[in-house]
């Protein structure tokens, strides 16, 4: 097997007796983008900070091009990072911000020339001499990304770089970032709690929940074939029936009364919340009585007569019930 460009082996982080994450194994090929998706507070940011060297792993190793680098100081690691906030230096102009890292390896003059060329190539050269406070949040984040890219790190870490932006800016910026990363053939680790974002940016996706990588693989494959309940809950649109079986949301239907449920089905008691419409489809929002979890199922029927809070059932045909494929944790 070809050796991976970047890999993490058994990485773990503990604070005292509290484990943030453990036995994290990841690998990336050159030029690949991996999205790490998971709920807030699962140590996604901490994982990136450890790879960057701002914090240290409690155990495990990080390798790049066959070289272990987790013992290096921050400034000696071939790693760049973009944070949640743009963190532009407020007392420096856009150009000075962009060439801040560049000045370390080349003269001020050539750094300046290179910065201007780069900013021109991405169409942001009109802000050259502006100070960060006069830029919008999205523009600031663009400059921050360029500042990280211009020093050509071998691995770029992106820690929810869109989380401080409003939805429209977010969408716009996502496409731009993906395009730029691909143009630069950048190997990147992208952390997010937004599933859609992870699909849009990542060539591969990894689900980090409960301090462990639950599943990695191609976004579509992971979406359709979750390996366990965590993967199902955090990435797939699936209703976990028990530890071993699940049903995809689009196979699930709503019934107001028990009599209307066909035979050979599994049904669960549920509470009606409401109905929403998106992309020409309508969706029923229901809450499972037993687990108190909310789920959204595509539902063609009109249930405007159902009062929010009234009880009913959701059901799925026996033949649509699926088994978690636990063998296949890493596709």
């Amino acid at each position, binding site marked *: 097997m070809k050796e991976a460009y970047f890999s993490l082996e058994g990485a773990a982080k503990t604070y005292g007796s509290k484990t943030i994450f453990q036995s994290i194994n990841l690998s990336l090929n050159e030029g690949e983008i991996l999205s790490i998706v998971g709920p807030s507070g699962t140590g996604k940011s901490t994982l990136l900070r450890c790879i*960057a060297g*701002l914090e240290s792993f409690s155990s495990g190793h990080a390798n790049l091009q066959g070289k272990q680098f987790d013992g290096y100081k*921050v*400034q000696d690691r071939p*790693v*760049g*990072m973009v*944070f949640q*906030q743009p*963190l532009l*230096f*407020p*007392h420096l102009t856009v150009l*000075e911000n962009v060439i*801040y*890292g560049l*000045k*370390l*390896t*080349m*003269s*001020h*003059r050539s*750094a300046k020339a290179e910065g201007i060329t780069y900013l021109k190539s991405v169409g942001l050269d009109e802000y050259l001499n502006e100070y960060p406070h006069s830029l919008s949040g999205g523009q600031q984040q663009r400059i921050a990304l360029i*500042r*990280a890219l211009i*020093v050509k790190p071998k691995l770029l870490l992106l820690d929810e770089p869109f989380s401080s932006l409003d939805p429209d800016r977010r969408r716009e910026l996502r496409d731009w970032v993906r395009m730029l990363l691909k143009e630069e053939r950048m190997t990147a680790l992208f952390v997010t709690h937004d599933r859609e974002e992870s699909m849009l940016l990542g060539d591969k996706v990894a689900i980090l929940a409960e301090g462990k990588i639950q599943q990695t693989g191609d976004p579509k494959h992971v979406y359709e074939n979750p390996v366990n309940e965590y993967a199902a809950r955090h990435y797939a649109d699936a209703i976990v029936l028990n530890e071993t079986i699940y049903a995809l949301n689009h196979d699930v239907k709503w019934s107001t009364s028990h009599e209307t449920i066909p035979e050979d089905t599994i049904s669960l008691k549920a509470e009606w919340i409401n109905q929403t419409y998106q992309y020409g489809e309508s969706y029923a929002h229901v809450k499972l009585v037993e687990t108190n979890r909310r789920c959204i199922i595509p539902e063609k029927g009109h249930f405007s007569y159902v009062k929010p809070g009234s009880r009913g059932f959701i059901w799925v045909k026996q033949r649509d019930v699926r088994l978690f494929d636990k063998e296949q944790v890493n596709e």
Partner: protein
Amino acid sequence: MKRSLFYSLAILFFLFPAILLGLKSVTPIWRWGEPLSFNWTLRGWTSFWMDDRILHALWLSLLIALTVTLINLAVGMMAGKALSHSSFKGKSMLETLLLLPLFVPAMAAAIGLHITMIRLGLANHWTGVVIVHLVPTIPYTIKIMKAGYDRLGSDLIDQSRMLKAGPFRTFREIELPLLLPSVRSAVFLVVTISMSQYVLTAIIGGGSVITLPIIYYPFLQSVDDTVMAAFSIVFAILPVFAVLIIELISRFFITKNSFFNRGAV
């Protein structure tokens, strides 16, 4: 309305006394009940400059104040950063401990230090005076710099490190320029405190370290308010002068195209 109120108060309480002081230093003594007369005299300034210890005292006051300031900034920044950005056991305890010198009467500290200073051979020397001036100033500087670092946060420092800048470069290009407002307040406070120390300087300096206050205070007992006014003006200008010097030093240190910054290679 608010603005005019501000200006009238500022004129009443700051500008008016300053002008009065300036006038007083060039007019002869006027005693209550004497008829109002208006004569000019340079006697206040000449008797001030004629004192042959004055120039030396000015220079020494400045030297002591600036040394105290530099030590304050070095200690204050390191302690302030540690208190703000790192967490360790007993942090709040340490923070309180560092403030305690303000609650002990300076005299008590000075007398205690005096014995140590004599043993170390620092008594009756300006370096001893510098050390004793640290007692009433360091707690303030630490407090100010901690607030500065609180405001700055650690994110920008992390960002600078991620762009492969070492600690020194990060300090000079990011921390120092962004902390300049805090540095200014600390400098002003420390210089003023140091320059107005009479008791501490007298005890540790033992009469052989002659700073401006040492000459100034005996004059207070005289009734010659012309000389007093001249003295006070110099006394008020000196801290401004010291702050200017620090400002120049920091400019040189920070300026974007300064000697240090002209790109390696």
